[in-house]
């Protein structure tokens, strides 16, 4: 093996002792017995056994393949086409995102309070379950709730609207009618796994347990964390530790998304940044968190309209579209005459619209 000892995932103190004893390459170590290693290097028996175990695991074929196997871009293209995306039922947003929320990537949804982040997340948890013959993914969803804003009644309303929508779409094909019989509000609700985390430690622990959960439930296609900002914005004295934890978390999430083919959706809050005497609303959790998600969607108000801007994406152009929240859920905005430039020049970030999603904009 060609791994150098300093690059192995071992405890730093053990590594220092190994290097001082003269071991440079992993192949020097592989033929040693634990007792031998113990005496030569001066580490405890337990540590010696761990070192050799790690080396043996590293040499396993599937581990080696993960590090060395490269896909060509062509293979990746086929994979991406097979993975698909989750529709949001707002066609303008789906177009802007290139079909919907991509599976296998992390998407971050930022917005001021009341603009519709949780509504969108609940809509996605319903939409991921639409059967394959209707253009959906037929998968399950895992909803990690840190704020306590998950309302089952609202999800039931959205589920009912989705079932009705599919009924209208169904032509007289056998498969579709069969799928429709299985698609009921109860079934949809039973396919959403809900986890409630109360602080950041619980959230981190849950993310550590996710790989096992996803292996046991391979039909899960969506993981929602609503919101990731809430547990990290309170009681955190050491901001640099927060940045480190968040970066580590982001890497774990993208690893999950890629290895288990799930779409990961995170919601973030907004904070005010003052620069040059002007204040601007920017996503919370800091500058470096902006690099964490693969795609970033910012929801904001403009007068009474709700807009969604695609701020960062590896494959789509930046775009801003309008949407609305109705009784049925997240939908397209109705066509209306364009407002004159004078009125829409300045967006009002402080538009304090109250959070009553079911009472606004009845379509």
């Amino acid at each position, binding site marked *: 093996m060609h791994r150098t000892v300093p690059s192995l995932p071992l405890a730093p103190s053990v590594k220092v002792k190994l290097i001082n004893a003269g071991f440079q390459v992993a192949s*020097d170590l592989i033929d040693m017995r634990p007792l031998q290693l113990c005496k030569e290097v001066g580490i405890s028996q337990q540590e010696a056994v761990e070192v050799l175990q790690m080396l043996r695991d590293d040499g396993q074929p599937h581990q080696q393949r993960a590090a060395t196997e*490269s896909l060509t871009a062509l293979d990746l293209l086929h994979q991406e086409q097979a993975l698909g995306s989750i529709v949001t039922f707002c066609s303008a947003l789906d177009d802007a995102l290139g079909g919907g929320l991509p599976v296998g990537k992390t998407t971050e949804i930022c917005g001021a309070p009341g603009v519709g982040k949780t509504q969108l997340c609940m809509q996605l948890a319903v939409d991921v379950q639409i059967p394959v013959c209707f253009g959906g993914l037929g998968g399950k969803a895992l909803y990690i709730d840190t704020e306590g804003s998950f309302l089952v009644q609202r999800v039931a309303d959205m589920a009912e609207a989705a079932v009705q929508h599919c009924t209208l779409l169904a032509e007289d094909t056998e498969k579709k009618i069969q799928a429709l019989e299985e698609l009921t509000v109860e079934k949809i609700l039973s396919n959403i796994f809900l986890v409630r985390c109360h602080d950041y430690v619980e959230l981190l622990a849950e993310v550590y347990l996710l790989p096992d959960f996803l292996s046991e439930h391979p039909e899960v296609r969506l993981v929602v964390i609503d919101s990731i900002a809430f547990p990290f914005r309170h009681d955190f004295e050491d901001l640099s530790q927060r940045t480190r934890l968040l970066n580590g978390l982001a890497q774990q999430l993208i690893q999950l998304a890629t290895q288990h083919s799930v779409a990961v959706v995170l919601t973030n809050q907004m904070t005010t940044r003052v620069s040059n005497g002007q204040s601007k609303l920017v996503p919370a959790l800091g500058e*470096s968190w902006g690099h964490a998600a693969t795609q970033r969607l910012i929801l904001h108000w403009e007068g009474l309209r709700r807009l969604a801007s695609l701020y960062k994406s590896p494959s789509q152009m930046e775009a801003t579209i309008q949407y609305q929240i109705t009784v049925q859920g997240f939908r397209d905005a109705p066509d209306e005459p364009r407002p004159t430039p004078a009125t829409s020049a300045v967006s009002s970030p402080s538009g304090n619209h109250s959070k009553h999603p079911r009472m606004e904009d009845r379509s």
Partner: protein
Amino acid sequence: MVILREGICPGVNEEFIKALQSEDIKTVEDFVSCNPEELAQKCSLSYKALVAVRRVLLAQYTAFPVSGADLYEELLSSTAILSTGNPSLDKLLDSGLYTGEITELAGSPGSGKTQVCFSVAVNISHQLKQTVFYIDTKGGMCANRLLQMLQSKTPNMEEQMEALQKIKVLRVFDVFSLLACLQNLRSNGLQKASVGGGSVKALMVDSVSAVLSSMLGGKQNEGMSLLMQVAGELKMIAKDFNIAVLVTNHVTKDGNGHLKAGLGQSWSHGPRTRVLLQRIEGAGTSSLRTATLTKSSRQITGFEERNDLIMDK
């Protein structure tokens, strides 16, 4: 420090090693730095044998000096300059990416680093018909986008598929897997790829800061070592295989509120050329970006270029 082991060279067998170990000589370094006469007296080994082994070990493990003129000749004959496909970026980089060097792109989220990497990869695989390795640590690799860029360069499907096959993607998500991947590339991955036709000319890592930033700072004492190891591996790959290495980095704010590339001073010595990408303030959702040269051994820094990074052109 290489450990003395039997079979390391003819004449070194188990007894030899045991005798040396009783004198507390474990590595090659210890062995060549002590006097063979004294050693012959202290342990029961013959002087002749010791001198012979010493000579062989010195020949095997010494580094030999090379003349500057030879090095220059080698440089001229082996360095290639790869165009990025974007003329104004090429101008900034003094006609393109140089093989044997690391070039870094830094920028805030959404400033276009991944898009530039894509356009360079597409250019090298399609125009120059060479293989490109792309190490993706953030899930930003989107083959659809590569296809879109290729479709705007040529309507021929065969050519598009061929170009896509020349881009090899590796996905790693933490620093230890990244090191394993780089070391594997160095020992046999790159040779295997060049045997298949089309030599490897470029390696991209998007991004280096995603895997390293969680290991730096606080009470962790390993972060810097891992950072230097990554820098070392990338440099060795660039030099030994004549490859242009392109990495992306995040940005932080310095004391005066200006943007600077992340990962600190130690990392800054790794890349030879550094470019900072920024959105243009107040332009709303336009696709224009500015690229500023912040470190270069060939041009004056502070050079700025405006770029339209939506590379459908």
